[in-house]
Structure formats: structure tokens, C-alpha cells
């Protein structure tokens, strides 16, 4: 394989691998930027995957080719509603946000598998008939070099993920809403004295993380797993959380981190087939993505400051 071939096989795989992580990590950025730690991302993805698959199985006949898009929409809505539990606990009930996030993870998996058994009578659903398919972008895919790299065999959801990362950046850094949301995560009392409803902002932010986690989970299910079971989402939510921190709580950073994970994973798979690397014991390739991440963090990413009020419940009138 030539270098170009290698890159050509790495990038598209990296992109579809990363897309679910990007969505979910963006949600994490919103939540944590508002001051609510969210280790429930895993659970929100589980919920998203579950709803996406159930909707797809149920309505494939009705909606035809539009089904996958409607499925992620449904997943988005349901996960967002589901995430209110985290919001109620950590915003209104002043719960330890880590504990509440852990509860979300347990709850989502328990509910998902329980309902699957109730509704389908077995531990895993059938495969969906209307998943997402990759496609070539007309014209662009014919551009030499760049075409095969970025516009052939691509999932629309991958583009959507990158697009939404920019939207998220725009919202957080260019709009009044974003300014207010970030202020709530840095100094909620300052926000409060400026007439911003801290609780409302945090509810919204957590629900956005629910919505994005829902999209992430359903995109994973509808591009990769194709069905739902206990083991559909295993660790992707935690990887997304890692991406949030790796990306320094910045939407584009989180996207970059998620792409990095995808890239590293893809690289490790592809290396097994590269003649020079073939003889490397497999274990090195297996752990390569994780080692690369550690090296990247230790080498040049370094210290990252979390939003100042991240993890602290806001109690009106306390100092």
C-alpha cells in the first residue's frame, strides 16, 4: 500500500468511527460549559441507540428512506427528555453530579434492555432495515486526491457531526445564549446578578447534552451496530467524555479529539495490513490508540482548565 492508499483508507473510516463520538462530546461540552459534569453521556448514548433502533424497526415501513433521519430525531427528543432526570438531580436537587451521572448510566442500560425484552421478547432487537448508508458526494467525489479522501463513501451523519461542531462553536461563542451559558458555568452568581436564570440555563444545557447524546447513540446504532442490545454502547460515552476534556471543553476541540480517536483506531486496524508493520505483535497495535492519546496529552496538549463552576450545584444566596 502506498501512503495515499493508506490515508485513503484511514480517513473515511476515522470519520464514521468518530461521528457518534463528536455528537455526544458536543453535548458534553454544552453540559459542562454550563457547570454540570456529565459522566452520564454513556447512558444518554444508550438511550439514543435504543430509541433510534426501536423507532426504525417500528416505522421503517411508514417512512421509507426518511426513517433513519426521523429515528435520530426521535432519539434526540427522547434522550433529551430522559436527561431531565440528570438536570433535576444535579440542578434542582443539588445532587453530586458525578453520582447522578452514574445513575443515568445504570438507568439507561437497565431501561433499554428491560424494554427490549418486554417489547421484542429477547435480549436484542432484529437488525434495522433502514440504516444510514454511505454515499459519494456528486462532483466533489471526482476531485482527484481530495475526492476519495473526503467525499467518497461518506456518511451524511459524519458531515452533520462536523457541521454541528461548528454550529455549536458559533452558538457558544457568538450568540447571547452561548455567552450566558458559559457565564453560568464559570461564575453562576455573577450570571444570576446579571438577571440570568442559572437553573434554566443549566436545564437547557443538560437537555442539549441529552439531545446530542441521543443523536450520537442513534447514529452509532444506525451506521455501525444496526441493532440494540446490552452490548451496543460499551464505552463510547466514556470516550466522548474523554474527548470533551481532551478538547478542552471547546466544541471544535472536542470534535478534533473525537476525530483523533477515530484516526488512531483506524490507524491501528490498518497498520495490521501494512507490510512494514505486519510483524509488530498485535498487542501493540491494539493499545496504540490509547497510548497515542496519552502521548498526545502528555506531549503537547497538557493542562486544561475546566469551567470554574463545573460540578458545583448553584445555591442561590450562598457565597
Amino acid at each position: 500500500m502506498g501512503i495515499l492508499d493508506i490515508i485513503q483508507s484511514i480517513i473515511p473510516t476515522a470519520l464514521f468511527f468518530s461521528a457518534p463520538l463528536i455528537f455526544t462530546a458536543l453535548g458534553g461540552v454544552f453540559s459542562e460549559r454550563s457547570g454540570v459534569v456529565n459522566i452520564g453521556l454513556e447512558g444518554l448514548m444508550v438511550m439514543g441507540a435504543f430509541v433510534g433502533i426501536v423507532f426504525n424497526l417500528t416505522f421503517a415501513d411508514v417512512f421509507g428512506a426518511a426513517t433513519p433521519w426521523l429515528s435520530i430525531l426521535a432519539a434526540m427528543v427522547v434522550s433529551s427528555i430522559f436527561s431531565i432526570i440528570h438536570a433535576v438531580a444535579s440542578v434542582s436537587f443539588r445532587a453530586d453530579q458525578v453520582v447522578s451521572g452514574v445513575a443515568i448510566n445504570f438507568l439507561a442500560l437497565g431501561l433499554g434492555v428491560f424494554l427490549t425484552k418486554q417489547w421484542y421478547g429477547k435480549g436484542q432487537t432484529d437488525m434495522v432495515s433502514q440504516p444510514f448508508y454511505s454515499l459519494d458526494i456528486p462532483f466533489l467525489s471526482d476531485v482527484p486526491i481530495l475526492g476519495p479522501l473526503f467525499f467518497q463513501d461518506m456518511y451524511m451523519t459524519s458531515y452533520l457531526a462536523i457541521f454541528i461542531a461548528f454550529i455549536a462553536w458559533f452558538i457558544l461563542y457568538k450568540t447571547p445564549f452561548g455567552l450566558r451559558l458559559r457565564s453560568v458555568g464559570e461564575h453562576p452568581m455573577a450570571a444570576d446578578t446579571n438577571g440570568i436564570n442559572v437553573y434554566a440555563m443549566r436545564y437547557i444545557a443538560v437537555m442539549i447534552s441529552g439531545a446530542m447524546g441521543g443523536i450520537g447513540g442513534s447514529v452509532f446504532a444506525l451506521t455501525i451496530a444496526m441493532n440494540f442490545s446490552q452490548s451496543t454502547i460499551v464505552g463510547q460515552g466514556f470516550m466522548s467524555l474523554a474527548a470533551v476534556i481532551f478538547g478542552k471543553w471547546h466544541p471544535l476541540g472536542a470534535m478534533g479529539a473525537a476525530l483523533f480517536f477515530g484516526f488512531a483506531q483506524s490507524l491501528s486496524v490498518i497498520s495490521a495490513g501494512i507490510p512494514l508493520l505486519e510483524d509488530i505483535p498485535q498487542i501493540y497495535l491494539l493499545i496504540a490508540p490509547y497510548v497515542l492519546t496519552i502521548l498526545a496529552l502528555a506531549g503537547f496538549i497538557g493542562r486544561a482548565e475546566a469551567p470554574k463552576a463545573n460540578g458545583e450545584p448553584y445555591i442561590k444566596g450562598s457565597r
Partner: protein
Amino acid sequence: ACGSSGEEGSEGNAGDDSSGSDTNKEDSGEAADSDFSAAMVTDIGGVDDKSFNQSAWEGLQAFGEENGLAQGEGIDYAQSENDADYMPNLNRLVREDYNLIFGIGFKLTESLNTVAEQNPETDFALVDAVAEAENIANITFKEHQGSFLVGVAAAMKTESNKVGFVGGENSELIKKFESGFRAGVASVNPDIEVNVQYAESFGAADKGKVIASNMYSGGVDVIYHASGATGNGVFAQAKDIKKNDPSSNVWVIGVDRDQHEEGAIGDNNVTLTSMVKRVDIAVQEVAALSQSGEFPGGEVLEFGLEDDGVSVAKTNEDAMTDDIVKEVENWKQKIIDGEVEVPSTEDELDEYLNTL
């Protein structure tokens, strides 16, 4: 065939409140020899894993049907969520006085050994591995034989002369699949390149998809997966390619049961064939032996091609052309006749390849 019966299997565990086993437990001291009963402990997959746990339960249910037994009354199962759960599950069933208890999956070997030694009066059976105790019947399958045949099919089907194998874990068991497959491929055409990769997980669909994507784009056109849910990613990738270019020559070979359903994409189907492992047949057979007092304790029962313990699915008639089927049958006969000794380990494979 196995896949379609998933619905039936489930009926038993949907809400039935009358818990008959409750009383069973209370009077566990009594001897219950009059009625034969059998139960099983699943491994982490669970009884509806569309794989061998499910298949085993189907076998037990079929046995129950023949003998007028139903779940909770004569037959039952216990599901494990964790490696540590095997022991309590096995013991619970022992305490409920089941005459025969199956452990499904090699992961239960150690636990079953211990429980069997502690309960010499009970019959046990272990699927997919070999234990030491005298009161354990060991059910294994000649997966290498079935894999050999799907290897033959793959070799016949490939146009690029590149095929792939995706393994779940690089373990002794999965090596059997790999060795048989590679032997089968090489028997048809030694020049075919076999791309082997292990995902190191039975539940990583994303990794399965990355591997498949890489293999297919590298020219591989048939992938045999022995990787559980990781294989979902392989199917996803194959179907995606097929969807974009229905004329493309991409195939997946399923494992454990007929994965025809998984390969359906519109009017096409990417499942070339599957290496079917009939755990149900084996379970039913051992249960019958135990009931009739001919329990093969301490023995190793190897289910292979000759007794349909492993077989090759031919559901996809468009893909499995007559040529292929003929060739597969041809090799099957040779194996049954003992003309061909299918390798089941890396070393045996090397030896085998040298003889070609």
C-alpha cells in the same frame, strides 16, 4: 432456521407470575427422581443472544416438548451477567434438584468442574470445552470442519483472490475457526490470500466495521466473521457497499447460526453462507441420553459434519451457486470419509498447508 424461532423462545420468559419453581426450592431436600428435569446456565450472552445460548435453550425446549416439560416445570435456564455469576447460577440449579445441568460456553469450564466435583449425584454437560470431572459430559463441535467448508465456499466465490477472517478473540476456540477456514480456502486455491484480523472483543461493532471497511477497500471480497456482535459491524459495512453498488462482489459468512437475515439489503443479501453450529441438536441428544440412563459422563462428544453438529447454510440460493454447493458437498464427503483431516490449530494448519 434457528433465527426464526427466536420468538418462541421468548414466550417463556414474558410475564408469567405463577412461580412454580418457588415451591421447588422449598422442598429441595426431597428426591425428585421420578421426573427427569434439565436446566442450563448461559454465559454472558444470555438466552436470547441469537447465538449458541439461544440455540442451546431451543434444544432444551425441544427436549421439553417431547417429554411434556415446560419452563419452570422440568426445564429452566439461568442467565449470567458476569464471569462471577456462573457459580451461583449453577448452584442454584443444583439446589433445585435438576438431574442434568448444562453449562453453555467454554467460560464455564472451571466453574462447572468445581460444582460437578461437589455434586457427584448430578449430571452436568459442558458446551464448547472439555472439563475433567467424571459427571460432566463434554460437548464440543468440529467448528474447524464447518469453517473448512465455508472456506471452500469463500474460495469459490472470491474474484479478487483475497478473502478475510475477522475473529472475536484470539483464543484457542476461535483459532479453530480460523485454521479450518484457511485450510478450506487453500484447498481450493492455495494462491488466495487470507487476511486475518482479531477485534479482541465480541461486542465491538465499531471495530468490526473499521476492520471490514479496511478489508473490503483493500480488495477482500468475502469475509468470514467469528466475532459475535462485532460481526454486526462487518455486516453493516458489507451492506453499505452493496447498497451503493448492488453489482459489487462483497460477501459475509456468518457464524454459529444462519445469519441470512442479517445480510438482507433490499432484494440483495450479502450473507453468502453461515457456519451453523447446532448446539440445539447436541443439547437435545445429551438430555435424551441422560434421561435414558446412558449419560456419557467424562466423555467428550464431538459433533461434526457427520452428525449435522456443524453445517453450512444454503439459504442464499442466488449466491451459493450449484458449483459452490457441489464443491462444498464434495469436500464434506471427503471429510466425513476421513480422506481429509481438517486442521484445528495453527500448527496443524501449517502441516496441512505443506501437504497441499
